[in-house]
């Protein structure tokens, strides 16, 4: 994801639509891209009127909105649209659990996130007013996609005017190879962790060499813990405004039963999440 030219948003006329649409419009303007609105269902004059009212309320789009009306299974329709329109970014709203401040991704959005071929942005608290993005947390896993993800996070942070990017290196506990039993093994494990941290830092530094990080405070944080899980927890602790992550590898049924990586994030969104593909 080097550029964001086309952004897709689903229009379901739900109570969240207004806020979602405002966010999408703002992002489209910031990146100077085209916004495509897709409604799954019949086209009716009422709906057209409602949409027109909405567009009227939102700040003016630099490139006019393109609307697609199509009947069918929402997942299939939206997936097809991303392909046909060669969309770069799909924006989805998350749901909030009743009474508690926990956000999760609904079943349709979840399916879309897994199957979409473009990057996906999950918004937990879209708002009509603009809330500045102050901190972005991005994963720095040892993975071939990481380089692109980090690059994308800097692209976004420049677009949104975000000044702080934290790259989180999640290191699996098993890589330490030392079980802490007593003082001696604790010492060994601590030294080993320090080494792993340095190794990860230098790997991330190599990626950063190719990126223009001017005006942005970059921080590297290594965490020993479960992949995908700890970064979400970290983003929440640090009150990050956006979490940028690698796209998952293909997930099977087993992966959903024993969630890992992205699935953790989807079941409990810590903040807005961007999945880079």
């Amino acid at each position: 994801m080097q550029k964001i030219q086309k952004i897709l948003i689903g229009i379901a006329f739900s109570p969240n639509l207004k806020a979602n649409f405002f966010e999408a419009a703002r992002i489209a303007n910031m990146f100077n891209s085209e916004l495509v609105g897709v409604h799954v269902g019949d086209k009716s004059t009422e709906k057209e009127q409602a949409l027109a009212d909405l567009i009227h309320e939102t700040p003016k789009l630099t490139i006019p909105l393109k609307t697609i009306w199509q009947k069918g299974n929402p997942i299939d329709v939206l997936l097809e649209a991303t392909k046909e329109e060669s969309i770069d970014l799909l924006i989805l709203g998350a749901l909030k659990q009743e009474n508690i401040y926990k956000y999760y991704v609904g079943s349709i959005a979840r399916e879309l996130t897994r199957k979409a071929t473009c990057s996906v942005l999950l918004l937990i608290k879209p708002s009509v007013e603009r809330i500045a993005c102050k901190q972005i947390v991005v994963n720095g896993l040892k993975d071939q996609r990481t380089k692109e993800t980090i690059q994308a996070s800097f692209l976004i942070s420049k677009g949104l005017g975000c000044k702080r990017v934290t790259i989180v290196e999640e290191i699996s506990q098993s890589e330490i190879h030392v079980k802490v039993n007593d003082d001696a093994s604790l010492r060994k494990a601590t030294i080993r962790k320090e080494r792993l941290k340095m190794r990860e830092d230098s790997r991330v530094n190599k990626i950063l060499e190719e990126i223009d990080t001017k005006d942005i405070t970059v921080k590297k944080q290594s965490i020993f813990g479960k992949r995908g899980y700890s970064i979400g927890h970290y983003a929440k602790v640090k009150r990050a405004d956006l979490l940028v992550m690698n796209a998952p590898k293909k997930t099977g049924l087993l992966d959903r039963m024993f969630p890992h990586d992205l699935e953790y994030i989807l079941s409990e969104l810590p903040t807005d999440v961007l999945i880079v593909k």
Partner: protein
Amino acid sequence: MSKKGTVKTFVGQLPQNIFSGFVVSLVALPLGLGLALASGAPPISGVIAAIVGGIVCTILGGSHVTITGPGNGLVVVILSAITILGNGNMYEGYLFTLAAVIISGGLMFILGILRLGSLSNFFPSSAIQGMLAAIGIGIFAKQAHVMLGDLSAKGSIIELLLSIPNDMFSYVQTNSTSVFYAGSIGIISLLIMIFYSKIRNRYFQLVPAPMWIIVFSIGFYYYFDVFSSSKYPIDQELLINLPDKIFAKFPQPNFDKLFELEFISAVIAITLIASIESLLSIKAVDKLDPMKRRSNINKDIRALGIATVISGFLGGLNVVTVIARSSINVNNKGSNRSANLFHAIFLVLFVLLLASELRHIPLSALAAILVYTGYKLASPENIRKTFRIGSEQLIIFMVTLLVTITTNLITGIIVGIIATFIIHVIINKNFGMFAGNLFKPNVLMFKEDDTYYVSVKNFSSFLNYTKLKSKLDQIPETEDVIIDFSMCDFVDHSVMENVYSYSESFKRKGGYFEVIGLDGYKSGSAHPFALRKFALSKPKDKKHSLTKRQKSLRSISEELQWSYQEIPQEEITELPEFGYFKTRQIKKVSNILSNDHCSLFDIDFSEGELIAKQNIKATMIHIGLDKGIPEFTLDREGIFEYIIHFAGFKDIDIDDHPDFSKRFYLSGKNEEKIRAFFTDELILFFESNTYYHIESNEKGLLIIGKERLAGVKEIKSLADFGIRLTQIISNVRTTV
């Protein structure tokens, strides 16, 4: 440390470990005999467990100052195993139980290999407390009868308890001299146990209470043997029965019932209790270790497993880590595992050399030791403590206790766990939170700017405490840690208690451990371990009336123009740094009289852990010095010091002052500096004043009078002593 250095320290510390092993063996002998008797096994089987445990765990163990041997938690389980498996025939039952012991040892070894040492964390602490109390009541109920010379009492724990008054009545009316004398020895022994800790005489305290009982009862025999014309009045059947050739013929464990349900449940119960008791003890002893080492729990469990297998084949009981004896080991300056080995060696010597004397000990004397142990396990104090944490903890405690007493241990602990969980669900009115988040990793730890930050999400209770523990265990205790529960909806008592003990060990080792994010939480009580909320209990603002002593303290403070506080506003942090408090835990400091650098105070502290715990109140004075003075301790010279001397400490004699050197025992690391520091003037001052125990840690002085609260007069002289000493020391420093 280089290998050579290690060997050197080891050899250097050998004398003190031999000494400590000796003192421990004095306790281990009567306890070993008594625990085995109470378990319904031959008395020697307890001593065998201690000997095997001492040898094997010294070689293979992973902790440093623990002592291993037969445990009191197991008494009830083994007794029921012997009774059930033997169908009334105690010896047959013993042979079957030996097989169960051997297999439980194997299971413990496997637990150690699978690194399941943390298994005990799955048990909520109040349930464990309830179970221990039930064990205590079980021991108490049976042994109270034996103590009164009645061996025939039988029945369930409740029946036994209810018949105790009856038994006392029949004891008073007895016309059998044998029962009368046995019972009298039992009662006197119990009194020795109770009042032992009250008598703060060093020579008396040098020999542990159980050994005094042995000495007393053997002495009683010799009184009749040598001085009295009448015969020893206690019947053979009320005396300890030891085989003639103790280490020659071992019983054959009987594996015939291997696959029977009764046998399997006995094995499970034994393994469960043996591991819980050991793990609790290892954890508690680590808190006492003056060298602040961390034990390798899994290695220790493996060693205990192997030791138990061997012990079982030799006719001994389970080998577990025992808290009371370990505390004694620490108090007597045992510094490494060799103390455990020496304790075993001394036991062998005792049994070989003193077998015929031991046969004169009445069962009632040993029963008295156990009655006291049982009472300590189930003391009303524990119930009060649990209640203070919260009424819901008391429910868990009582449910576990009652179910354990009326059914058996396994059912008891399972019901305790279920009760805890149900209470948690009721309190939160939310089952989904537990069900949905149980298996999620809920702990995040990362290091940022040299501080470890630990954040806990969702809920934190005994169910998922291992996740938190495994993270916390990875942090060296010398570092700074912040643990944040703000994303956690529920924190239970077990977690609070464990977190508190982490904060203690961080404090001890020089790190910093802070808990945040619980401020807005509701909790059942103001107790720091109460579920949900962690806040150190602050003194209440209410003005309550002062006691007479407090009033006089206030008037002394006015006389001296010092300030007086009943309860300190802030914690005194200097005290734990003194060597004296390395093996003692400070509980409360109160009634502080202070000026700029002196403070005189009453202090509550404890020696030992769990059932071996002794609470001591004393008055001391602390003097903060702005300039460094050498580290030293100064004490009155006596027999005690000769023994310590033998244990590898050195008395520094000051030349030209033979009288001072003779009367005082002075020790410290830097001999040269100490000699320079003790000028003629200072020595004259010490010679012409009352004796105090004085300790310096370079930054300050700690002066201790007697190990009890001082009276008003004593306080005056203590304060006066402190003031004058400070003056002299400041003179010394300016002239040097």
